[in-house]
């Protein structure tokens, strides 16, 4: 999700977020329903490739993005293929791995073609059904987004804690770094809360 949307003006970019989620979910279900046979491999991967090519990022950019996404999934696909190969044989392993890969690639088109603000709006609309049970849709949607975007900040804070340990001649360790990391992370959370309040976000 942190890979963010790619600029574009194609049909998938222009499509409203809700219908887009429904359409790509249906495509994912269709891919998952393919039989476990050799024939499913080109069908699943071909469908994903075609969707990327015609998604409106431009054919070349779409295929390049497809490659980037596949590379990002390489370990997951390798583990999936190895496990299936071990227990189900080559045909089922190939078909199932292709189906998983295609499903994840199709789902990946949502954040690639949808600005986060639009995703946030759609999530907020979707969560409105939970309002009767006390869920604040705007707050829940923002919480989800802030949690995602805080990941790189926390990674940087953890690196700074490790650097501080090295600077004092200590070997970085998880146990020794846990408390200072927690302190800086909580301080960061306080600052984010203040900044959101100052921007009028409850």
């Amino acid at each position: 999700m942190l890979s963010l949307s790619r600029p574009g003006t194609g049909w998938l970019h222009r499509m409203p977020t809700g219908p887009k989620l429904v359409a790509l979910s249906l495509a994912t279900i269709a891919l998952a329903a393919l039989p476990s046979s050799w024939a499913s491999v080109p069908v699943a991967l071909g469908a994903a490739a075609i969707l990327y090519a015609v998604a409106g990022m431009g054919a070349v950019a779409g295929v390049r993005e497809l490659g980037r996404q596949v590379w990002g999934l390489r370990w997951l696909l390798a583990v999936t293929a190895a496990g299936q190969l071990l227990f189900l044989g080559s045909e089922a392993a190939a078909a199932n791995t292709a189906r998983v890969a295609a499903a994840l690639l199709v789902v990946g088109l949502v954040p690639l073609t949808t600005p986060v603000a639009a995703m946030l709006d759609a999530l907020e609309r979707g969560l409105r059904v939970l309002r009767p049970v006390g869920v604040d849709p705007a707050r829940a949607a923002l919480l989800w987004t802030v949690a995602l975007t805080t990941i790189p900040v926390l990674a940087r804070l953890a690196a700074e804690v490790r650097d501080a340990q090295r600077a004092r001649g200590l070997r970085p360790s998880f146990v020794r770094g846990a408390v200072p990391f927690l302190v800086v992370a909580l301080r960061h959370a306080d600052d984010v809360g203040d900044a959101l309040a100052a921007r009028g976000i409850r």
Partner: protein
Amino acid sequence: MIRCDDLAVRLGDRPVLHGVTLDLDARTTAVIGDNGSGKSSFARVVAGLVRRSAGELSVCGVDPDRDATALRRRVALVLSNPDAQIVMPTVSDDVALSLKPLRLARAERDRRVCIALERFGLSALADRPAHDLSGGQKQLLALCGAFVRAPDLVVADEPTAYLDARNARIVADHLLAETGHALVVVTHDLALARRCEGAVLFDDGRVVASGAAADVVGAYEAALAC
């Protein structure tokens, strides 16, 4: 713009401001003083993030403790650490977040975001991941997020603390620009303080001098030399 009478603030049991009586009407005001002197607490109480424990306070005609919503519409806050202010994944999304409370139509929201990005020289970075920006660009983004709502007053708490000289200058130029807003800037950068019209000097939670920036900064420098 800001009026306070015998203002006091406590953080837990610790008094951080006491007996602060001020009437700030200058378009740009620097708040200076040593670490722990109460400058940031003053900025936070003015921005409505901290409640006062005693006294009276009026910011743009609004009592921050009584009408926080009206205060948010009129006052924007910029912090020293831009990472804490950037909460959305991309530059344009983060600026758009500031407009969310206004519940604008998407086209109007996008239009205002475009104008703000242009003003801060961030248009080319609109779709970039916000946390991949340089420190200077992040602080410009934080300013952009504050200014996009066209506030009457911008409160900036050490906005140039993490920046190199060039970026500090750029950020200061944007803050001091005459675009219809008033500015209260907490700073250790005395060059920036001198560029303001007025200044307030804090020491141990009290105001020890206020007036024309050149005079107050001069008094502070003289005290530092002792």
